[in-house]
């Protein structure tokens, strides 16, 4: 061991008495480079898996007038999507006398609890969510509400998208005007 310490390689065996000038090792400490390498690997692995886009299944019903589903009033909840990410809802059927109390508004933060409440309070066979989207609601709203159904584990077949009727459009319009939603 003519040369001590760091450089273990490259040290040729010298004969006795041969003195050599001290050579500086050309070796570089690679530890930081390894660190950097693994850091980059970790970065790439994470970023690539994050941006993975997913696909949501969508089942459309056949438009068959003979197969109109009859829904019990007690088990129905109608969710209406309006503009400005507003959500309106009512239970059962709208009655002319109590229309102003039955027709309520909320938003996407509040709808989950309402969906769940309805689900817990209703026997599963009667349960039906009717989703109606306004012309001014967005694609995101439509996906979000379907997602809410999945989140609240509403079984498929217990929610459906239906066209809006003029009364509901009018109600949304008046509520929007009253609340100043643009």
């Amino acid at each position, binding site marked *: 061991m003519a040369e001590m310490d760091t450089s273990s390689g490259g040290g040729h065996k010298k004969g006795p008495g041969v003195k050599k000038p001290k050579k500086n090792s050309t070796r570089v400490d690679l530890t930081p480079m390894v660190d950097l390498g693994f850091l980059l690997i970790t970065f790439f*692995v994470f970023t690539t898996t994050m941006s993975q886009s997913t696909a949501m299944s969508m089942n459309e019903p056949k438009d068959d007038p003979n197969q109109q589903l009859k829904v019990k009033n007690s088990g129905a909840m109608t969710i209406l999507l309006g503009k400005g990410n507003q959500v309106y809802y009512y239970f059962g059927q709208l009655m002319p006398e109590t229309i102003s109390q039955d027709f309520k508004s909320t938003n996407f933060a509040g709808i989950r609890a309402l969906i769940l409440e309805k689900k817990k309070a209703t026997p599963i066979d009667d349960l039906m969510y009717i989703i109606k989207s306004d012309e001014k609601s967005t694609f995101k709203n439509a996906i979000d509400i379907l997602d809410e159904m999945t989140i609240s584990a509403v079984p498929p077949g217990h929610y459906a998208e239906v066209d809006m009727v003029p009364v509901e459009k009018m109600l949304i319009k008046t509520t929007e005007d009253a609340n100043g939603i643009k």
Partner: protein
Amino acid sequence: MPKVKIPRKSTTVDMTAMCDVAFLLLTFFILATKQKPPEVLKVKTPTSVSSKAAPEKSILITMTKDGKVFLMLGDDTKKSAIIEDFNTTRGLQLSAAELAKLKKAEYIGLPINKLKSALDMPQEIPANLMDGIPIDSTNNELSYWIKSITNAYKGEDLRKLQEMMLVKGDGEALYPIFKSVKEAFKANELFKFRIVTEGETVPLGSELYNTGKTEKK
């Protein structure tokens, strides 16, 4: 008894090999990850809790923020069959050169009456100047396209096609556009398709979270 000399070994390990491995892995990951195809159409998809990955080979219908609809035929094996079928069924009377040009196009985003003149032009029309495929209830050209797609896949597993049909839309797109797209599907007896979304974690404490199922459909 001779003195046993225990050589003092250095504790530093040779890092070269580890460094090699690290960079080899790095190179592998960079090369192996598929680059996202350059997106001509800027679309910010909504999020959903669905955990199914979107298929790579797909027939993609894109809805942009301003309500334009584009069609991307990602299945190269059927692309020419679809376009040729569309040419004959809609009576476009495109020449062989025009057909070849249309087949090379990455996406289709023009109404039928503008398709031929656009193909004759020397340079391509950028996506932001395209009109999109008309999807009004009176003139739903997307349903004609879907018709050609179903024609091209006739005799094959319908479920495979349904797996491939993707709808991707900007969250800001208005609902009637999405509705028209759904109508186009329904008009062709396709009742199942999939929507491209960005992944989202299941909210803590929700019903879905409690049952531990992330995808049941």
